[in-house]
């Protein structure tokens, strides 16, 4: 019986740990062997983590591991999460890098999607792109290119260090997929 509880405890611990959301007692019950009481397993798990750096807490009718609240200030001091560029901005940046100097209309043509001013602004604000004059065609559209800041961000000595287009594309991009 003690062995069975220990095994159930291991399984519950792993399940709560790996789950993306709080685990409901009913979900645990489905996993655990017949005859093992879910409440007893949860209680044992809570005891095991009591006072430790990580605790079992009850949220949204389920259970979840959370770091102990008193440690949060110390963790906060160190952890630094760099900002992520949205998908559209990354794609636009990549297209500018490979096709520069390039107009907004050309970027939209390559991506097959409209380019919002917000996306362009985000890249400008991050100093990753800059205007590179205008194309001498009707409307004289602005040409865009990458900046030295772009090279720095991606650890490149110069633009020639970008992977070759031919090495990236074995076949021309297929319409499907």
């Amino acid at each position, binding site marked *: 019986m003690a062995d069975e509880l220990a095994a159930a405890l291991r399984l519950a611990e792993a399940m709560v740990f790996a789950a993306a959301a709080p685990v409901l007692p009913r979900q645990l019950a489905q996993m655990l062997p017949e005859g093992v009481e879910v409440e007893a397993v949860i209680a044992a798990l809570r005891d095991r983590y009591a006072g430790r750096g990580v605790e079992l807490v009850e949220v949204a009718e389920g259970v979840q591991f959370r770091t102990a609240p008193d440690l949060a200030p110390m963790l906060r001091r160190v952890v630094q999460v760099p*900002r992520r560029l949205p998908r559209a901005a990354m794609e636009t940046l990549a297209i500018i890098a*490979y096709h520069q100097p390039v107009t907004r209309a050309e970027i939209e043509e390559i*991506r097959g999607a409209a380019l919002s001013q917000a996306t362009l602004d985000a890249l400008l604000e991050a100093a990753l792109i800059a205007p590179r004059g205008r194309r001498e065609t009707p409307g004289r559209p602005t040409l865009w290119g990458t900046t030295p800041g772009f090279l720095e961000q991606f650890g490149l000595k110069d633009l020639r260090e970008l992977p070759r287009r031919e090495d990236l594309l074995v076949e021309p991009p297929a319409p499907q997929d």
Partner: protein
Amino acid sequence: MAEATEALLLRLEGFEGPLDLLLDLARAQKLDLAAISILALVEQYLAVIDSARAIRLELAADWLVMAAWLAWLKSRLLLPAGSEAAEEAEIAAEVLAARLLDLERMRAAALWLGTRPLLGQVVFARGAPEEFAENEHARLAADLPALMRAYLAGLRRGAATRSYRPPPLTLWSVKDALGRLAALLGSLPDWSSLDQFLPDRLGAPLQRRAALASTLLAGLELARDGRLRLRQEAAFGPILLRQERVHGG
């Protein structure tokens, strides 16, 4: 042997290329790749290719290139030892054996990787990691691999949307060719090749072939109207054209 070859043929499409087949044949021969007989291997490969041809199985060029090279190797391996040609063949056979050994090792490495406790398959990391970032947005989380993925994703999306409307045709039309041919014809006194009447800036081979076809059609059109003569000395030879001399007859 014949049966084995047939069985192989049935699976030929399952092989990832000539080297893959050679490795499979070598494995069947001996467990120790260092001790395989390259000559036997060559004969088996050539037998497979011959049978494939016999049933008119269409083979990609690299299979035939390998077959040609192996046939050369076989002829040299059969020469009496000591000659320069035989030595050359021995070295080539050693290189082939080394390539097979390296590929086999990489296969083993792939299998070994597959036995690892794979994250997301065998072991799982925390499902709900916690972030304690004080919104310190000093740095950007963007690296080169992410940029490459974004580029491929962007191109793919573009290709997907474009597939719904056919791209505008930028091919050299017969009308274009008629205009150019008529304008240039007077400036050339004698027989000239059709190539010389193609537009200057042609990118892809497709564009070039299209321009050639349009120019030929335009030439036939003008010949019908009696404005020029066409000549071709031999089948697939260069097509020559000349302005029709209206006064002389």
